[in-house]
């Protein structure tokens, strides 16, 4: 970067003016953000220090709501569940997405654009519709699982007629994990694909000159180039996993005894708010969840990024 030699004061003035110019671009986003997100968050924070009862009105509760959350068995059970979900589902989904993106980028694929849209399609399906579809597939009476069960039962009697039970206590979390993977694989694949497209072709040429084979290229050039995209996809997938709500909530009517009202922390907060009208406690749960999520996301992001990225 070359600069012409301006008098010292003028140069500083230019730099200072440029410093604040950034806000011109960021301000519209931040203005809406403060109104739509910060304001409710502050309101929720305020609510978390009070307690409103059906009888007796609003009373100041200090930190007692927070103490209650830390001792709340339901909260920690739900949190443990999404933590488990996260460490299993996120790596699997991101690995699959990365393989798909690398395959698309390899230029050794027949009909790449068909695959691209086919894998992306599930992301376009609204959650309400996905629940209908998977409700059928997982149905152990009339659904696909049921048909597979009858088939297996008829031909492989050792397995019994009730082999597949997607909504049983032990299988419900993997079943939900499968739906989430199905929904978001295409989304993450596109993120990686876009990042791969930005890699300069010079790097590939240099590698070829050095005699690197295709697999070596993948591991030495492509995957390192994806580093930023991997971090961002991981951070947002972690946030999404900890905040898991849509899929278990929509499936709750199909498995009411297995998916409890506090199955995930987000469902717990939702039911506290809407069924129990315990807005204050729900706000407290949300803030505790938010802090844990933010800390986790920050750690992942800090460890994953190179210096200078931020």
């Amino acid at each position, binding site marked *: 970067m070359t600069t012409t030699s301006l008098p010292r004061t003028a140069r500083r003035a230019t730099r200072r003016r440029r410093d*604040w*110019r*950034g*806000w011109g*671009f*960021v301000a*519209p*986003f931040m203005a809406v*953000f403060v*109104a*739509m*997100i*910060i304001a*409710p968050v502050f309101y*929720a924070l305020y609510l978390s220090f009070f307690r409103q009862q059906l009888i007796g009105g609003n009373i100041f509760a200090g930190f007692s709501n927070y103490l209650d959350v830390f001792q709340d068995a339901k909260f920690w059970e739900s949190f443990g569940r999404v933590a488990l979900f996260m460490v299993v589902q996120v790596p699997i989904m991101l690995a699959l997405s990365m*393989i*798909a993106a690398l*395959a698309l980028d390899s230029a*050794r*694929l027949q009909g790449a654009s*068909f*695959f*691209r*849209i086919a*894998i992306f399609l599930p992301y*376009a*399906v*609204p*959650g*309400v519709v*996905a629940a*209908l*579809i998977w409700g059928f597939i997982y149905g152990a009476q*009339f659904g*696909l699982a049921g*048909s597979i069960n009858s088939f297996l039962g008829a031909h492989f009697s050792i397995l019994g007629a009730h082999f597949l039970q997607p909504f049983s206590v032990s299988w419900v979390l993997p079943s939900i994990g499968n739906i989430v993977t199905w929904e978001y*694989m295409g989304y993450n694949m596109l993120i990686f694909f*876009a990042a791969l*497209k930005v890699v*300069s072709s010079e790097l590939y*040429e240099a590698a*070829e*000159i050095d005699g690197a084979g295709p697999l070596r290229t993948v591991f030495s050039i492509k995957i390192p180039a994806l580093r*930023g*995209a991997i971090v961002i996809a991981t*951070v*947002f997938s972690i946030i999404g996993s900890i905040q898991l*709500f849509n899929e278990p909530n929509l499936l709750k009517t199909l498995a009411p005894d297995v998916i409890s009202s506090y199955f995930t922390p987000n469902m717990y907060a*939702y039911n506290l*708010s*809407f069924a129990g009208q315990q*807005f204050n406690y729900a*706000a407290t*749960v949300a*803030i505790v*969840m*938010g802090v844990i999520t933010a800390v986790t*996301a920050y750690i992942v992001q800090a460890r994953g990024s190179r210096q200078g*990225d*931020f």
Partner: protein
Amino acid sequence: MTTIDRASGQRVAPAHRAKAHRRGSRQRKSVVLTIVMVIFSIYSTVPLLWLIINATKSQSSLFSSFGLWFGNGFDLFGNIAQTFTYNNDIFLHWFANTLLYVVVGGGGATILATLGGYGLAKYRFPGRRAVFAIVLGAVAIPGTALAVPTFLLFSQIGLTNTPWAVILPSLISPFGLYLVWTFATDAVPTELLEAARLDGAGEFRIFFTIALPLLAPGIVTVLLFAIVATWNNYFLPLIMLSDPTWYPLTVGLSQWSAQATGVGAQPIFNLVITGSLLTIVPIVVAFLFLQRYWQSGLAAGSVKQ
């Protein structure tokens, strides 16, 4: 096509280039990769097959036939007609509402994210690091528990049960912001901006004439994700809207689904399924339309000189 060797500033011998080019076009198609992608595609599309097959069944046929095969009769067109006309054409209302929310909300979100991401990437202003930390931090707090405080706040301003209650919150796309930020850092060379500044161009002029074209593929990605997110927006509209005339398609379909429950139940699963199929079609169209910009732009925006 020739490239310029960095060190010597001279053109590289065409032989290398031709060899690389030949490699790209005559690369042997990998069978293994194709099989893997076929498996992925089957995994992704078979559940949607259920949707297509069952959209051809009438309501009574749905209850009497197996889920993954056709029932008696082919009622797709009847279902489509019924979906559009049921209950005084409310589906069309929902469709129009969703279009409104997507154009204004999704479009607006893309604009805000592009402006913001560019600002974060290309300007070192005070509070820069804090901005993203705050955005990420606020996103970390789950929206379901913020729904009631948001409802109460909106209610005071009188925005509940209006389209603004849906549009305004959807203008924030933290992911879009991040995406444009990382993309702009790489794809828009600061030298170009400096050169333009020296020529006396204003910041916004620079943004529009120089940065925007370079950012095009990133913007298209953000736009696509914003379109899908606003199209499928369900939870907040459900809380904010009580009048079905303002519902987006997702909330409307779930209301139709709930008609199968309780006293006076009237299952219209056939309309829910057909409606769902119709809901997906515009997204597919948008994707097919936008991917062309992506394809050309992504490669063009990448070269570092």
